[in-house]
């Protein structure tokens, strides 16, 4: 993991990868809602004017125009900010895209608190939950720029609805350019035996930092990146937990309905263990810088360390 010149936002991968795909002859189009510059789909429009459709400030129309384009044989990506690109068009995603099982990829950007100063109205913290709850929908949360590129390619390779969650802020580099994402697979970024930290998105970097801090205290944490939130890599997650005996999840999302909830649903069914969920504790975000907000809402590495301490204390009390 390196936070250097190679740090890029996941959204930076969006337009770029679409252009590459179009170059390769894949019939991709993007539909955006007056945010083609922010989401970077404008890059596709610059290279292929006919492949970008800007519907104006009309997210409901955005989703269903994409649905229509997919019916004409294209692979249609949608844009906007995550808060509007999912929540403002939920019924369209549900009743048209998912119910008809269309080749539409819901891929908004600016998810989570990392939109910073825009504040609570713009900080989408329920989108994983919204999308994960939809039948026929698959969900990917890439943790860095290269993972985002891989996620977009995986979405294209997979017929049917896919949600790809991208963010606005630069995030440290975790993967190389050769990274390929797979459905139902978690990536073990650091092996350990004392606790499993399962993270997604920008929290993967925090989890790695937390593991370093924990190592100093003699706690050997296993860090796994879970980009495939749905379908969840049940086998990989359970294998890690079988080894460590307890788990902390970390996500830039509400603790309700996201990765933490998915892992809780999984362990409760197959391997009940103590779980601590690091995430937004059922509150709206607020204006501030990303580092400030990570601390304020207890989403930073120290917060993950504290969660690990708590979960291990519980675990030992029980044993």
């Amino acid at each position, binding site marked *: 993991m390196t936070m250097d010149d190679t740090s890029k936002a996941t959204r930076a991968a969006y337009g770029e990868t679409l252009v590459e795909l179009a170059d390769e002859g894949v019939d991709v189009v993007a539909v955006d809602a007056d945010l083609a510059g922010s989401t970077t789909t404008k890059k596709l429009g610059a290279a292929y004017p006919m492949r970008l459709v800007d519907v104006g400030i009309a997210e*409901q129309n955005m989703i269903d*125009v994409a649905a229509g384009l*997919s019916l*004409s044989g294209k692979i249609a990506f949608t844009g906007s900010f995550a808060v509007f690109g999912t929540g403002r068009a939920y019924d369209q995603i549900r*009743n048209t895209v998912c*119910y008809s099982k269309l080749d539409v990829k819901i891929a908004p950007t600016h998810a989570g608190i990392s939109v910073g100063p825009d504040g609570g109205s713009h900080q989408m913290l329920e989108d994983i939950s919204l999308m994960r709850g939809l039948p026929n929908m698959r969900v990917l949360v890439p943790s860095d720029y290269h993972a985002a590129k891989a996620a977009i390619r995986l979405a294209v390779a997979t017929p049917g609805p896919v949600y790809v969650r991208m963010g606005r802020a630069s995030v440290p580099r975790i993967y190389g350019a050769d990274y390929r994402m797979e459905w139902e697979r978690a990536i073990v970024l650091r092996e350990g035996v004392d606790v499993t930290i399962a993270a997604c998105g920008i929290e993967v970097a925090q989890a790695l930092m937390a593991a370093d801090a924990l190592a100093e205290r003699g706690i050997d944490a296993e860090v796994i990146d879970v980009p495939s939130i749905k379908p969840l890599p049940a086998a990989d997650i359970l294998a890690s937990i079988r080894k460590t005996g307890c788990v902390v999840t970390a996500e830039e999302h509400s603790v309700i309905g996201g990765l933490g909830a998915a892992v809780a649903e999984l362990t409760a069914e197959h391997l009940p263990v103590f779980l601590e969920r690091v995430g937004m504790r059922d509150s709206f975000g607020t204006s501030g810088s990303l580092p400030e907000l990570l601390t304020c809402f207890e989403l930073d590495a120290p917060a993950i360390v504290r969660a690990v301490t708590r979960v291990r204390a519980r675990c030992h009390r029980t044993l």
Partner: protein
Amino acid sequence: MQPYGSVEGARVEALAQMEVNVEKDVAEKVGTPEGTDGSERVAAIEMADAPLKAMSMRRDIIAMLALAGSGHPGGSLSATDIVAELYFGGILTHDHDRPTDPARDRFILSKGHAAPVLYAALAEDGYFPLSELSTLRKLHSRLQGHPDSKVLPGVEVSTGSLGQGLSIAAGLALGLMSSGGDREKGMVPTVFALLGDGEIEEGQVWEAVMFSAHQHLGNLVAIIDNNDLQIDGRCSELLGLTGIAERFRAFNWHVLEVDGHDSVALNGVLSQAKAYTKGPVAVIARTVKGKGVSFMEDQVEWHGKAPSADQAAVAFGELGGMPGWYSECIEGGRA
């Protein structure tokens, strides 16, 4: 159960009468649509098919709903003549043997609750056996309460949540247009979307309206089933929904108005709409909800209620008899 035997006679009679009327209509009105070459007579005969099919479809609709015990007769019957004209009046280029032919015109039933009228058209055309109509709304049926494109050939996209069909149609029209083909030469398929008048209260419809006009979607036709009824009352009273044509015009659409139960007029207007390539066309079709069944006509309570067997029998009397598949089904049920 009612004795249905006598109805059969009435049906034959009504059909005969209707054929006479249709011949008259055609004789009177042929030539109204533009372009009168040698194929005129063929077109006229094709046109004449539609009213006959519409009559069958109305019978199918009543039969389906009576068997299902729930569903939406009012909006299915108001749209019957329109849908019949599209499928049997030579408007839609389509082939039930190749339901996914890329060159086909597309029909999107945005007002998905009128599923029975779509199912009737598809079955009458041969997309699936008429007898399957008896499965409407039943467990494991392909005829879902609202159209499900995953299971039934001929359904372009699932609908049921109002206000979405025009956006889908616009995206599809754009996709077909950009996939090549010369619109001027009629090489690009046309996308027709049928909307309820209550449905256009959904804001999303106006998003699609703005978008389609701006994109000059010359292969898009929106048909508004203007029966002036929704669920809680008259559209004109509940939300002051009048002057629909002016609203579309203010949003830069080409607008045509038509009597939604006049086959010949409908055929002319729909042909014109299809031929218009400069931008999207709105066809405002004045209709009567529940059209064809006296006790349902213009009655708000028949929006979403199935007729009982007795009520269906009365309706069949007015519609020239019951469908063959229905009587077989009833008899099968008795046996």
